[in-house]
């Protein structure tokens, strides 16, 4: 039988340790893992460190650090818990694990940089617990979502599911642009509205639903149609991502040009009857809407849902895909639909994908742009001057 002191000494003999000065030199290249308890973490950390309390280390490390050859520095407050933690990671096959002797206390005493992590309230920790469990999101990701700002063009078929899922996910600020009022023909699919809000401005109806779902979310309403005159003011409020659920071509082209000039990624979705299209336009990185569709179709080839109809659940699918893309963009994870147009057929239940390439001769995002300011988008889409 060994005492604690003996056990610690034995473990320390089986692992590698480094002092604060050496750890400081490796900071920036090596992953620092803080194995202390939450209350200790909240009072200050090594900048950039990830937090896995000692008790969860073995179960969570593989999700967070799948690469077992990665260099890891473990620390606790004084270097004991991190020694046991280092032993555990060695046993799991991690090859370059060291424990910080003297721990965070010594790091701080040396005057090395520390930061105070922003942290979620107990209520938020419960609300977003299923996000916090996902290694790709976690607490840092949830903080990013709470600081995120997403602008929705349209609170209709696509904007309804998109805004609801973004709000539920805890995106801190949602802007909604829509000039319409809730009509009873909307309710077959526009699930952010309800029979109770018939006749109300859609932005107000959506705001009420969103705030009932998640009071963490601030909703900025723009009860107006997006135009060349107001687009600078609305985009000037500062957005990380635009979710385009507009119902007409002039707005689509306007959103595109504005997003290219402001460098804001657009998650595009469109629907008709049983079919949907989804993609991501990321200015400077991938194609824009004009690279994909340089010329709007004539009106007879571009009926709206109001003329041709749409299956009620279709915008639910497409708008949810848009929310997924928007969340990934805010989180900075995964592969977006940039450069890929997803084609959905709800009748055959098929999903196809076609490639979308950036067009060097694109009049807006190409090498020598010929359109550098807002045009009359209604005229452009009516084919005037073509």
């Amino acid at each position: 039988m060994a005492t604690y002191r003996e056990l610690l000494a034995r473990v320390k003999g089986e692992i590698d340790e480094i002092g604060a000065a050496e750890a400081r030199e490796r900071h920036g290249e090596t992953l620092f893992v803080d194995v202390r308890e939450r209350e200790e973490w909240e009072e200050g950390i090594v900048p950039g460190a990830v937090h896995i309390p000692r008790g969860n280390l073995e179960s969570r490390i593989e999700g967070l650090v799948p690469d077992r050859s990665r260099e890891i520095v473990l620390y606790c407050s004084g270097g004991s818990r991190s020694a046991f933690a280092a032993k555990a990671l060695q046993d799991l096959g991690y090859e370059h694990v060291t424990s910080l002797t003297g721990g965070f206390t010594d790091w701080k005493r040396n005057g090395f940089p520390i930061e105070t992590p922003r942290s979620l309230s107990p209520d938020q920790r419960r609300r977003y617990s299923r996000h916090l469990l996902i290694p790709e999101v976690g607490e840092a990701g949830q903080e990013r979502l709470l600081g995120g700002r997403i602008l929705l063009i349209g609170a209709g078929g696509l904007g309804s599911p998109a805004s609801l899922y973004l709000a539920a996910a805890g995106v801190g600020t949602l802007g909604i642009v829509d000039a319409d009022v809730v009509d009873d023909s909307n309710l077959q699919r526009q699930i952010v509205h309800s029979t109770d809000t018939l006749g109300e401005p859609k932005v107000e109806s959506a705001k009420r639903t969103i705030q009932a779902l998640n009071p963490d979310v601030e909703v900025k309403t723009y009860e107006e149609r997006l135009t060349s005159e107001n687009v600078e003011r609305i985009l000037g409020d500062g957005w990380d991502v635009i979710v385009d659920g507009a119902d007409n071509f002039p707005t689509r082209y306007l959103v595109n040009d504005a997003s290219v000039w402001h460098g804001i990624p657009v998650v595009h979705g469109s629907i008709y009857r049983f079919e949907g299209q989804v993609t991501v336009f990321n200015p400077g990185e991938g194609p824009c809407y004009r690279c994909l569709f340089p010329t709007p179709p004539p009106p007879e080839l571009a009926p709206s849902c109001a003329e041709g109809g749409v299956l009620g659940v279709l915008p639910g699918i497409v708008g949810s895909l848009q929310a997924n893309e928007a969340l990934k963009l805010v989180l900075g994870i995964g592969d977006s639909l940039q450069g890929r147009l997803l084609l959905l057929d709800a009748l055959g239940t098929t999903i196809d994908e076609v490639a979308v390439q950036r067009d060097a001769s694109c009049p807006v995002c190409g090498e020598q742009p010929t359109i550098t300011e807002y045009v009359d988008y209604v005229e452009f889409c009516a084919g005037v001057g073509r």
Partner: protein
Amino acid sequence: MTRVRIPPTLRNEVGGERELVGEGDTVREVLEDLSGRYPALERQLFEAGALAPFVNVYVGGEDVRTLDGLETRVNGASVILLPAMAGGC
């Protein structure tokens, strides 16, 4: 034989079909084969012998504008016709 996906907005031109089969080695030949059977389709797809600028054509998932245009060989891959859709409603 090449399978050609018809978008909802062009189905009235082809008697409501969602997919047609065309003959030919290139996109042009396949679409001309369909146009011969469905003249209304030809009027939407072509402008003065060229592909209408608002119709995207994909062969094997690639935009023919990034390949050889209408002269792109189909080689058994399926073709998708795709005009833009505006609806978010």
